[in-house]
């Protein structure tokens, strides 16, 4: 049963009962007259004492307030009109906001403190205000690290991590903009470079279709779309080998430029889908930047399709799989067909975290009889005890020497164990030990610390 509690309208009451209206009117008239006479007399008594400059200032203030009221009224009218467009369907199947209701809504809004009305309009811009007042929010993330390793030739160093400027702007109730721009020093040259890591215009049609246009993190597995470029938001010091960024030796197409569609496919099961079309990743030899921001090295587009479940009956769990397909065109060698199959099983709540992901990259050079398989996985577990969160991760990635693209990466596997301490809501300190085994090389041990923060 719907519980629409009818508004006990005093207006209706008065129109239906003329006599009480007159009585009430007389009483109000007498009261107002009395108040006016009293205040007038009081004002006359004080007139002599009032400074003309004060009067002038007061008049000016009144004029300013009148202008503000007019401005607010026009904003409220615009808001009411736009809300009428967005009204949920009524039980009769009609558009909900009836014009007759608008003045009531406007009256309520005008009754609000002006700061309140302004604040609400600022935070929830309507479709009507789309062109006029998108509000930009800027957040920042950064980290400072110190690392030491027994790898021959390495030195212990303080490291400036990524200086991340994260910008969002809610353009309307359905459209928004997101940009993640990272300033980062090159490990080889110590020179700073700047790169827009994500740059997206998002448009939500409904719960079943959300579109994103621009440069995004490819929906391969879980980690890549759950953790982006902020060290603060990830539990550990660094991303797993598997999901390292392209310019840091990673083998996956972590970034892509194109169009992404995501949404809820079946709400009962919490089934979501991902469908992406983009330029894909370059073959590392034809174009210097592996992310093809402007020019694709071929006409074939990278396609990524995925499904994942977040069942209501299992809060915190997510599992799913995806398949990515692209053609790469290395210089001087045959073209390569790349297929990436991934699967993940994740549990996360406020205290416990279990991340498991596996990926199989398959590279098939044109004309070759064999396909090269690159298996990789990681498993990460952590639990929070107050402000402390100890964690452990084991990761594995094996690129065969016969791989046409990433043979230099080779085999890497090993554990990482660390402790994260939350300094406050915006800062964390981490200390981590890692041991990495490689093919034909001695194992390396490393210790790192990181102070990550948001501002």
């Amino acid at each position, binding site marked *: 049963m719907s519980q629409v509690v009818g508004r006990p309208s005093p207006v209706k009451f008065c129109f239906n009962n003329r006599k009480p209206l007159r009585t009430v009117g007389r009483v109000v008239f007498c009261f107002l007259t009395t108040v006016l006479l009293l205040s007038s007399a009081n004002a006359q008594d004080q007139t002599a004492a009032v400074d003309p400059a004060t009067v002038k200032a007061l008049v000016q203030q009144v004029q300013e307030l009148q202008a503000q009221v007019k401005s607010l009224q026009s904003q409220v009218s615009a808001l009411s009109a736009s809300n009428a467009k967005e009204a949920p369907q009524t039980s009769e199947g009609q558009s909900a906001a009836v014009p007759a209701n608008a003045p009531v809504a406007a009256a309520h809004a005008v009754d609000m403190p002006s700061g309140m009305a302004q604040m609400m309009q600022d935070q929830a811009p309507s479709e009507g205000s789309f062109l006029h007042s998108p509000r930009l929010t800027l957040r920042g993330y950064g980290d400072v690290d110190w690392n030491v390793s027994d790898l021959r030739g390495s030195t212990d160093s303080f490291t400036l991590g990524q200086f991340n400027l994260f910008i969002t702007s809610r353009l309307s*109730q359905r459209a928004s903009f997101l940009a993640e721009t990272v300033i980062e020093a090159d490990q080889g040259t110590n020179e700073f470079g700047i790169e827009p890591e994500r740059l997206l215009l998002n448009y939500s049609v409904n*719960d079943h279709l959300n579109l994103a246009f621009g440069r995004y993190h490819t929906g391969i597995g879980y980690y890549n779309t759950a953790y982006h470029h902020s060290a603060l938001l990830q539990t550990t010091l660094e991303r797993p080998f598997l999901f390292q960024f392209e310019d840091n030796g990673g083998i996956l197409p972590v970034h892509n430029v194109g169009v992404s569609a995501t949404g809820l496919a079946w709400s009962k099961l919490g089934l979501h889908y991902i469908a992406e079309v983009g330029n894909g990743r370059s073959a590392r030899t034809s174009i210097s930047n592996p992310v093809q921001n402007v020019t694709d090295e071929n006409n074939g587009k990278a396609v990524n399709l995925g499904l994942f479940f977040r069942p209501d009956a299992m809060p915190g769990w997510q599992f799913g799989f995806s398949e990515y397909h692209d053609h790469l065109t290395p210089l001087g060698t045959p073209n390569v067909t790349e297929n990436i199959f991934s699967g993940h099983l994740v549990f996360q709540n406020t205290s416990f975290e279990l991340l498991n992901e596996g990926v199989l990259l398959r590279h098939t050079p044109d004309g070759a009889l064999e396909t090269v398989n690159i298996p990789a996985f990681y498993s990460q577990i952590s639990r929070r005890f107050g402000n402390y969160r100890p964690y452990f991760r084991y990761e594995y990635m094996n690129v065969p020497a016969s791989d046409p693209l990433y043979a230099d990466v080779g085999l890497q596997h090993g554990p990482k164990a660390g402790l994260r301490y939350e300094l406050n809501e915006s800062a964390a300190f981490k200390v981590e030990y890692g041991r990495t085994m490689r093919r034909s090389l001695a194992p390396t041990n490393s210790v790192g610390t990181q102070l990550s923060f948001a501002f």
Partner: protein
Amino acid sequence: MKTAKTVCLLSITAFFLLGLSAALAETLNSFKSTDDIAVVVNEKNAITAVTMSDLRRILLGERKFWKGNAPVQLVLRDPGTRERDKVIGLSLKMSDQEFAKYWRTMVFRGEASAEPLAVPSNGMATEYVADTPGAITFVVGRNLRPDLKVLKVDGKYPGEAGYPLK
């Protein structure tokens, strides 16, 4: 004869309307007399009931649209208020800090464009819901306004035994 019939019909209608009004007033009073936290939406919203699972998805930003495709606009009280703490605690089993962190992450992932609107008073929350067709908020029964629609949660109204947002 015709006049008598009309009078009879009008009397029955008036009686019915009177009864309906009394029932509605009684219902409102019963809501007002409870400290349970009511889930309220704009009276133009066609929805009449939600489940705790629905509420969870709305609070987590996973459900962004109502059935008629209007965007859900979640309005909460400021951190530290009873309504906010209760709703977040009972629905999500989270503290307010965890809830804030969750939403920061949602925005960073690009899964939400902004964190939920937070206002300092029940009056502001209800005012916003009354004026915004897609809005939803949570208020203690005694702060209910007559022009808002109270939703059943898991088949129960505030004040009824077994109501989940007590």
